[in-house]
């Protein structure tokens, strides 16, 4: 179906996009890669009166290594991150980029668009919340930096003011003896996951010294599984710690029953993904090469 008619505005700079948003008001939406927004507009769930197109602003797509930090441009496509040797320095980032939807959607969808949309079933926020991630945002008056952990307020709701845009995503590289992994379970490639789990661990020998575990698709926002993290932190990585963490993750999940499965089924998927993600993250922390990809029914 055709979207409802709207007016088109092509921004030449971030500042111009911000000014357009203030002038046009709440009826205006930003268009980044469009892989979520356009389907919503075609179903007429989203009916913006104005679209401000970011696609012709130069230099918004980049992946840079600043030593301590990887910097991503907001319009960097998932596929560019998937194929980037720089981005692969953080394996969990590659896991995410390589598994989102299908090739065609990864070629168009952007990391900034995904974060700004804050879809509870999105992938990027789960992964980047296990790392130290900061967002640079700007409007026509100035700039500020927001930690990703303060950015997502609710389903489809972020800290961004109406005239603010993400200008850069800063991800601190995890240090020595760390490893992360992201597993998402999907019924088929193009759809959103049924459930997903991101795990980032720091190990000292066989002992886990730090853990970050985020569950996706099982709450209005990404769920930080604090009890699961505590079950691992300070403990030897053995069967007992693993089982405690899995059960804590299962309890932390608060899924809604829908076409992707019942609440109990989704908790079971979370438990299974948590086990795989912890094991893969621990193996990577030991320096082993582990291939991780989204799982299909």
């Amino acid at each position, binding site marked *: *179906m*055709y*979207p*409802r*008619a*709207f*007016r*088109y505005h*092509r921004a030449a700079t971030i500042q111009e996009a911000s000014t357009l948003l203030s002038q046009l008001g709440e009826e205006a939406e930003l*268009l980044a890669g*469009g*892989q979520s927004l*356009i*389907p919503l*507009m*075609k*179903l007429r769930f989203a009916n913006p009166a104005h*679209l401000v*197109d970011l*696609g*012709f602003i130069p230099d918004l797509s980049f992946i840079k290594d600043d030593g301590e930090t990887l910097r991503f441009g907001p319009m960097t496509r998932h*596929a560019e991150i998937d194929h980037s040797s720089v981005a692969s320095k953080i394996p969990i980032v590659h896991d995410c980029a390589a598994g989102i*939807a*299908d*090739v*065609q*959607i990864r*070629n*168009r969808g952007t990391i900034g668009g995904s974060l700004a949309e804050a879809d509870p079933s999105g992938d990027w926020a789960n992964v980047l919340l296990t790392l130290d991630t900061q967002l640079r945002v700007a409007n026509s008056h100035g700039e500020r930096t927001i930690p990703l952990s303060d950015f997502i307020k609710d389903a489809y709701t972020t800290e961004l003011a109406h005239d603010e845009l993400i200008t850069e995503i800063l991800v601190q590289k995890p240090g020595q003896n760390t490893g992360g992994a992201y597993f998402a379970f999907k019924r*088929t*490639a*193009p*759809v959103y996951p049924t459930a997903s789990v991101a795990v980032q661990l720091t190990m000292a020998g066989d002992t886990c010294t730090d853990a970050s575990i985020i569950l996706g698709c099982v709450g209005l926002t990404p769920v930080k599984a604090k009890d699961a993290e505590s079950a691992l932190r300070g403990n030897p990585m053995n069967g007992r710690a693993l089982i405690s963490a899995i059960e804590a993750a299962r309890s932390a999940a608060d899924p809604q029953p829908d076409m992707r499965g019942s609440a109990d089924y989704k908790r079971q998927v979370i438990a299974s993904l948590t086990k795989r993600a912890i094991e893969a993250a621990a193996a990577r922390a030991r320096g082993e090469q582990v291939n991780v990809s989204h799982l299909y029914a």
Partner: protein
Amino acid sequence: MPETIEKVPITVKVNGKSYTRSVEPRMLLVEFLREALDLTGTHIGCDTSYCGACTVLFNGTTAKSCTMFAFQADRSEILTVEGLEKNNELHALQKAFGDSYGLQCGYCTPGILMSTYQLLSETRNPSEKEIRKAIAGNTCRCTGYQNVFKAIRAAAAQGIGETR
């Protein structure tokens, strides 16, 4: 429409030929190709970004043309299934699909061909897993995919990715 919406002038190169048109902002790229340019090889299947029948090459990588607005293609290059054949001769990739019975009703075929085109442009000898991942965004309701995989393997064995 309740009021007049200003059209957007765009210039797009499709299959090597440049077109300049004014499009309504809400016009989707697939409608632009099919209705404005009369290139009906690109199909509309699900119209919900799922099935991949509308897949085209957009500046060298695949995109679902039902999930792009025509204005996004301004100053870009597009290759559709019509652009594969040269001098009335089917592209070797198309021949491989015919030879391996990699299609039945053929509705999904233009999209699968474009996804395969990107795969073989990037990967000379794709593994079974790479083949499956490359066309995971293309739905076929007839073949059960086995002959599609066979066609892609046959095309890869001929070194099709290197020819263009």
